[in-house]
């Protein structure tokens, strides 16, 4: 039982990163029906932005809390700038084009950003990331089940991110404009909503959350590398589809579910389909099963909650 609970905690932590990144996929999809495959790279840029802030901009001996805040802001600045430029120059000109065009563009942007960072940090290897929150600081959750400090931060960030985002979309004026744009962009424009601005807002919000995730990922594992966005991006996209793409709570729920399935598969899947190598396969088995019975994903029906 202790083993099961510990693996459950591991799954929730793994899922928290997927969920935070999935929020960006789901929000952009909800508004412009674009699967922004470059979003994984925005997550990666957040990690590198935070690392750059720490290694280049911060004087040594900066208090940890202040350093973390500044790293978060640095990461966000890089992620958001990249997302805004990407939207303006890669996606906006293709707004009226057939759907396949922006999709291919997204893949191109993704490769471009990866190579850009690879040239900026010319190393084949992962780069060490400062361990400001000690990973061997274990918090006992009772019954011998533990979680370390950076992981706890990741989970809290995911939940706070989801709650803040859905509150914003539900209650704020901009949020309601986002909902309107999602439901019917033409009518929204007729009602005086600047839809271009709303779309940029969705990219900015998604990029900010991805930057949070990039930072917490760096803190958790102590490395960042230019390829980190590719795998996490695919997983997060899967989580968004699992939860019902376009649905904010669904993205985080999908993330948690995917993380838990992967972890449980590592522990309990029968041989020869066991072990971490098969965890991804089990994740997709669950995705297919969910889509068979609920084609719109777990929470995909509540179209009103789209943003």
């Amino acid at each position: 039982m202790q083993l099961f609970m510990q693996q459950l905690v591991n799954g929730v932590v793994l899922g928290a990163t997927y969920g935070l990144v999935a929020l960006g996929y789901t929000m952009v999809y909800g508004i412009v029906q674009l699967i922004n495959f470059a979003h994984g790279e925005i997550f990666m840029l957040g990690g590198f932005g935070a690392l750059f802030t720490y290694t280049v901009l911060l004087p040594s001996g900066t208090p940890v809390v202040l350093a973390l805040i500044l790293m978060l802001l640095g990461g966000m600045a890089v992620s958001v700038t990249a997302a805004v430029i990407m939207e303006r120059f890669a996606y906006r000109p293709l707004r009226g084009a057939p759907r396949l065009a922006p999709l291919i563009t997204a893949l191109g942007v993704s490769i471009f950003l990866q190579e850009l960072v690879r040239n900026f940090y010319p190393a084949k290897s992962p780069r060490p990331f400062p361990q400001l929150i000690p990973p061997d600081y274990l918090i006992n959750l009772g019954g011998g089940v533990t979680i370390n400090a950076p992981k706890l931060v990741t989970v809290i960030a995911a939940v706070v991110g989801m709650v803040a985002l859905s509150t914003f979309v539900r209650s704020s004026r901009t949020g309601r404009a986002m909902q309107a744009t999602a439901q019917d962009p033409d009518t929204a424009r007729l009602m005086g909503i600047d839809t271009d601005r709303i779309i940029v807002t969705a990219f900015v919000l998604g990029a900010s959350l991805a930057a949070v995730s990039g930072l917490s990922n760096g803190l958790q594992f102590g490395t960042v590398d230019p390829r980190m966005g590719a795998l996490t991006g695919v997983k997060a996209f899967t989580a968004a589809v699992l939860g019902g793409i376009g649905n904010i709570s669904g993205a985080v729920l999908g993330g948690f579910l995917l993380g838990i399935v992967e972890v449980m598969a590592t522990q309990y899947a029968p041989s020869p389909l066991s072990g971490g190598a098969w965890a991804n396969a089990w994740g997709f088995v669950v995705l297919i099963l969910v889509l068979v019975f609920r084609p719109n994903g777990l929470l995909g029906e509540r179209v009103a909650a789209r943003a």
Partner: protein
Amino acid sequence: MHSSRIVRIGAPLIIVGALALSSCSSKSEGSGGGNKTLTIGVVAPLSGDLSAVGNGIKNGVDLAIKQANAAKTVKGVTLVLDAQDDTAKADVGATVAAKLVAESSVVGVVGPLNSSVAKSVAPVMASANLAIISPSNSGVDLTGRGALATGATQTRPYKSYFRVCATDDIQGPFAADYAVKDLKVKKVAIVHDKKAYGQGLAEAFAKQAAADGATVLKTETINPGDKDFSALVTKLKSESPDFLFYGGEYPEASLITKQMKSAGLNIPLMGGDGVDAADYIKIAGAQANGDYATALGAPTDKLASAAQFLTDYKAQNYKDPADPYGAAAYDSANAIIKALAKAYGEGKTGQALRDEITKEVGDSNFQGATGAISFDQFGDTNNKVLTVYKVTKGAFVPVKTDSFK
């Protein structure tokens, strides 16, 4: 070097390098005083990321040639060096190999550094039966050893290819012997990344560890590129092993050891030369201490037999260090020189000389800087030296060097 590295270098540089080298060799030709001039070739990366290692090889050969000329080892012959830059690329390697083969004065070649380059160089050499000895190739297929893992019969693919270093496939058994016999571990967990290198290494380790009497837990696998290994770590912890062997490379290995120790599972991780990297320690930090990695060959300054070589190497004031493969290159060149001395003494010339040298290299038996030099029927060295390194105070420190039997 189990993996090939890509070195970016423009074609103009290669041409400039080749011109510079050819002018060198033509200058030294007349110096024999009526003697016949014969050439020993080198194929190694002399520019780019790996140039320091490649130049160490070139210098090792240069030293052997200078000593042979001074001692008149080959009567009536002045030896010269023709070093070709393969830029660590297979296609460039094939081109410079063809150039060496076409030059009739070339009687033997030392190199290349990378196994991937050797795959395109060795067939060219074999076509002219020109002896080539690599100081560093560890890829199993170059001597047909790959067949052994599947239980098939080993056949030699390149008849004139030899190497003086150990191969990838014996790292696993060597590591297992060290873990079980020297460290006395009882219950071993095995993890690999499913790639050819990692899986092969882990399976060989598991087999030997079980044969040595340790309990081997069911093999776990991961995906290269993964970062969160907490599920794996939790599972391992529940099985309470006292040792972990990882088949794969350092980016994942460093995260596994860190997450394992953070979660309170304080057992050493051991890996192959894919883990033996400075970045392993940089990423894992203090938690890398106590971990192990094996590597092919031996640190030259720890070898009693290499003391004279190191003194002589230093006396030449070469720009690049002898390590890691200078001593092995020196031995390789000496194997060719000894074979040449015999073959030339029998009055052989032209293709007959090359044929005879290849045959004589196969029969080599002498004490070199890296130990005894002799080859089996497939071109592999009989002296398979490996070293175990332990992470101590943030650095890989050699703890045991031994020949694998």
